[in-house]
C-alpha cells in the first residue's frame, strides 16, 4: 500500500519542474509552520506567529478565498449568535460593528480586514485541498499533500480546518430522488430565486432558525420539518448607534471594557447551561417565557417545547423564529420523515408534501470520531484509526505520537456558552509557545507523553459526566456511542488557565 505522501511524491515535483522548464528535482522548503485552513483559526494563528517574529508560515486553503465558516455560510439571515464585540479577536478589535450580532457578510469582511491589515495573504495558498498529513520521523518534518498532488513541508503543522466545515446531509431514504432544487445551508445557491416557490426547510437548529425568518417573506409556502425542537432564547440584536462606534474608536479601552463585560456575562450563563444547577431552571424559564409570549396556540407550543434539559444540545438564539413559523404561508411539520420522493417529502402521516426546493439546514459532518483526512504520525500510526471510538487529545491541542501537530478546536475544546474565538485565542497562544520552544531549545520536536494525555482525558471525561451535554439527549457533541469528544467541561476562564502554560515536563523533547 502506498501512503498519501508516496503517491504524491513525484507529481508536484514534475509540475514544478515543467513550470521551470527543467528536469532537475525541486527541493521543497521546510516551512517553520504549515497551517491547514484560512478561517479564523488559521489566519489568527498566522497573525500571532507573525507578530512574534515567526514569518515562515504557509496557510493551505482548499477554497478559492479565505474566510472559513463565514465564507461558506452565506444563507439569508446568516449571523453569529455571540455578540460581535466578543466574536472577534481581542488583539484586533473592530470598533465599527454595525449590529450587536453582526451578519455573516460583516464577519467575513472582518476576516478579510485581518488578512489585509496584517499582510497575511502572502502566506495563503488558495485552492489547496489538503488530503493528507504525514510525519517524517527521521527528519522531524510534516508533509501536507493536496488533492492536486502538491506537497508542502513544515516543521510544525496546525490543523485549523474547522470542526464544522463539511456540510452534513441527513440519512433519509430517497434523498437523491428529489427532482426539484436542493440547497444546503452551508453551500447556499444565491442564483436560485425563492420568490413564489414552495419550499421545505429540513432541520430546526442554529442555521434553520436564521434561514426560516429570512425565507418566509419570499416563499409562496414554506414548510419546516422538525425532528427535535431546541431551546430558543431571545436575541437582543440591535443596530450599533453612531456614538457608540465613535466612542470605541476614540477610547479603545471602552470597547475592551464592553468585551470584558460580555465575556463575564457569558461566563455566568455557563452555570445554567453547562451544569445542572438552580440557574439551569432559570434559563429554561426564560426560554419558556419567550416561547409562551411569542406562540399562543397550545398545540404549537407543545410541538416547540423541548423535552431535554437546556444546554444538552446547542442553545438557539432568535427573536424572529417563532413569529416566522406562525405566518400564514409557513407551517411546522413534526411528523417523522418517511422518505424523500421525486416531488417532495413523504411524512409518516401518509401525506406527500410537494416542493420546488428543499433546503437542508442539517448542520455538518462533525469529525468527533475521526479526522477529515488521513493524518499519519510516528511509525505510520493513523489518527483517524486511533480516534474511531472518539477523539482524544492533550489539552485539546496535541496528540501523543504526532509531534509538533497542533489543532485549533481539537477534541474537548468546544464552548457551549461563550465565544469560540475566546477559546481559539488560548489555543493560538499555546501554539505560539510550542513553536517558540522548538526555536529556543533548538529541538526537532515536542511530543506529548501518552500517559499525560491519558490522565488529562480521564479528568476531562470525569468532569464531562457531570455536564448537561452528557445528560441523555442525542446531539452532535456526542459520538454514536455517546462519547463526548467535543465540549470542554468548564468556564472559558478555566480553559484559558488550562492553556496558559506549556509544561515541558508533559512532553518528550526530541532532539535532532
Amino acid at each position, binding site marked *: 500500500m502506498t501512503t498519501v505522501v508516496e503517491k504524491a511524491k513525484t507529481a508536484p515535483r514534475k509540475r514544478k519542474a515543467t513550470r521551470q522548464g527543467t528536469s532537475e528535482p525541486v527541493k521543497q522548503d521546510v516551512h517553520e509552520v504549515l497551517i491547514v485552513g484560512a478561517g479564523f483559526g488559521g489566519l489568527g494563528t498566522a497573525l500571532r506567529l507573525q507578530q512574534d517574529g515567526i514569518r515562515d508560515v504557509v496557510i493551505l486553503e482548499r477554497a478559492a478565498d479565505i474566510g472559513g465558516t463565514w465564507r461558506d455560510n452565506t444563507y439569508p439571515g446568516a449571523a453569529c449568535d455571540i455578540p460581535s464585540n466578543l466574536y472577534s479577536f481581542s488583539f484586533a478589535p473592530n470598533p465599527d460593528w454595525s449590529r450587536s450580532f453582526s451578519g455573516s457578510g460583516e464577519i467575513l469582511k472582518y476576516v478579510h480586514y485581518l488578512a489585509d491589515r496584517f499582510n497575511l495573504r502572502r502566506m495563503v495558498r488558495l485552492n489547496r485541498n489538503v488530503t493528507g498529513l504525514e510525519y517524517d520521523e527521521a527528519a522531524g518534518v510534516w508533509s501536507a499533500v493536496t488533492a492536486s498532488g502538491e506537497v508542502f513541508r513544515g516543521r510544525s503543522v496546525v490543523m485549523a480546518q474547522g470542526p464544522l466545515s463539511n456540510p452534513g446531509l441527513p440519512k433519509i431514504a430517497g434523498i437523491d430522488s428529489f427532482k426539484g432544487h436542493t440547497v444546503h445551508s452551508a453551500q447556499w445557491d444565491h442564483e436560485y430565486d425563492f420568490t413564489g416557490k414552495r419550499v421545505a426547510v429540513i432541520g430546526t437548529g442554529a442555521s434553520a432558525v436564521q434561514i426560516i425568518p429570512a425565507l418566509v417573506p419570499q416563499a409562496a409556502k414554506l414548510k419546516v420539518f422538525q425532528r427535535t425542537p431546541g431551546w430558543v432564547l431571545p436575541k437582543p440584536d440591535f443596530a450599533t448607534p453612531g456614538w457608540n462606534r465613535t466612542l470605541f474608536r476614540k477610547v479603545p479601552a471602552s470597547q475592551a471594557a464592553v468585551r470584558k463585560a460580555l465575556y463575564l456575562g457569558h461566563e455566568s450563563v455557563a452555570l445554567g447551561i453547562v451544569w445542572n444547577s438552580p440557574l439551569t431552571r432559570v434559563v429554561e424559564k426564560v426560554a419558556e417565557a419567550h416561547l409562551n409570549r411569542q406562540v399562543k396556540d397550545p398545540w404549537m407550543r407543545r410541538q416547540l417545547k423541548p*423535552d431535554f434539559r437546556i444546554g444538552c444540545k446547542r442553545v438557539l438564539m432568535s427573536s424572529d423564529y417563532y413569529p416566522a413559523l406562525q405566518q400564514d404561508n409557513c407551517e411546522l411539520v413534526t*411528523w*417523522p420523515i*418517511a422518505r424523500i420522493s421525486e416531488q417532495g417529502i413523504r*411524512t409518516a402521516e*401518509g*401525506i*406527500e408534501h*410537494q416542493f420546488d426546493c428543499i433546503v437542508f439546514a442539517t448542520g455538518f459532518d462533525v469529525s468527533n470520531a475521526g479526522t477529515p483526512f488521513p493524518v499519519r504520525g510516528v511509525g505510520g500510526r493513523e489518527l483517524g484509526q486511533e480516534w474511531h471510538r472518539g477523539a482524544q487529545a492533550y489539552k485539546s491541542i496535541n496528540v501523543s505520537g504526532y509531534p509538533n501537530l497542533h489543532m485549533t478546536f481539537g477534541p474537548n475544546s468546544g464552548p457551549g456558552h461563550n465565544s469560540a474565538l475566546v477559546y481559539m485565542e488560548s489555543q493560538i497562544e499555546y501554539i505560539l509557545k510550542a513553536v517558540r520552544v522548538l526555536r529556543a531549545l533548538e529541538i526537532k520536536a515536542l511530543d506529548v507523553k501518552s500517559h499525560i494525555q491519558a490522565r488529562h482525558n480521564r479528568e476531562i471525561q470525569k468532569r464531562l459526566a457531570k455536564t448537561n451535554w452528557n445528560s441523555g439527549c442525542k446531539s452532535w457533541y456526542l459520538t454514536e456511542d455517546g462519547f463526548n469528544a467535543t465540549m470542554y467541561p468548564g468556564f472559558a476562564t478555566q480553559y484559558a488557565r488550562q492553556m496558559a502554560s506549556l509544561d515541558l515536563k508533559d512532553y518528550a523533547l526530541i532532539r535532532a
Partner: protein
Amino acid sequence: MATIDLDKMLEKIKDSQWALADIDWEAPGADKISPEQWPKLKAFMSDLMWIEHVGARGFAAMAKKAPTDTLREIYTYFHAEEQRHANAEMALMRRWGMLEGDELPEPNINLRLTIEWLDRYSDDMPLEVLGSVIPMLEIALDGALLKFLLEEVDDPLCHEVFAKINGDESRHLGVDFHVMEMLGRGKLHQLAVKTIGTVANPKLILGVLAYAPLLNKMRDNIVAMGLKEERLYDAMNKYERIGGRTEEGRRNPWFQIISQHGKMVVNRSHPYHVPVDALVKLTSFIPNRAVGPVPTWVKGLTWRTTA
C-alpha cells in the same frame, strides 16, 4: 410473551411506511356500497376516524413520557401512523361520497370529550396509565370496528387500505403489550403506592368520566348499526388474555384496573351500566360548542394524498 427488541421494531416501523399516494383511490369498487349501508357506514367511519385520534393523542403524550429514545421515536411514529389511518379513512369516505370539499367528519360527543381530555391532561398522566389504557382502546375499539367493517364492506379498495392499517396496528399492539409488561416490573408495593397516588388525581377522575361513557356509547353505536355487541366484548376480552399472559403483565396494577373495568363493561347486567348509561345520555345534551375550540392539530387532517 417474548419481549420485543425495540430497536429492531423501530427499524421495522421505518421500513413499513406507506403513503396515501401509494393507493389508487379511483380504483373500481366504490359502487359496492349499497344505499342502505351508506348512512350507517358514514356514521361508522366518522367514529372510526376519530377513534384513531384517541390513539394518536395518547401516543403523542406517551412519546413525552417514554423512558428511552427508541421508545420515544416509536411512539412518535405511532402518533403519525394513527393520523395516517384517519387520513386514509377520510379518503375512503371521500371515495364513497361521504365528504364534501375539505369537510371533516363530526365526532360524537363522547369521542369529543375524550379527545378534549387527552388534549388537556394526557401530557400530565404517567406512562403507566396511558401505556395501559391506550392498548384497551386500540384493541377494543379500533380492532373490533375494523373487523366489522371488513365483514360488511365489499369494496376491494377498502380491504386493501385496511390491510395496510392492520399491519401498522399489529405493530402498535406488539409494542403496547410489551410496554404493559415492562410497566409491571418492579416491587409490587411500589407499583401499588404509585397507582394509589395516581388514582386520586382529579385529572384522572375526569378521564374516567370521559372514557367510561365512550365505551358504552360505542357499544350503542355498534348495536344501532345492526352488529353484535359481543364482538366488541370479544375484543375487550382479548386485552385481558394478552395483557395478562405473563407474570409481569398481571403485576401491572393498571392492567388489573382496566381489565376489571372491562369485565363490568361486557356484563350487561352489571349495575355499572346504570350510572354510565345515564352519563351517555347526559353527555348527549352537551352542545359541541361547549367543549371548547377544536385543537389546531385537527387542521392537519386531510384526505388529500399530497399537500
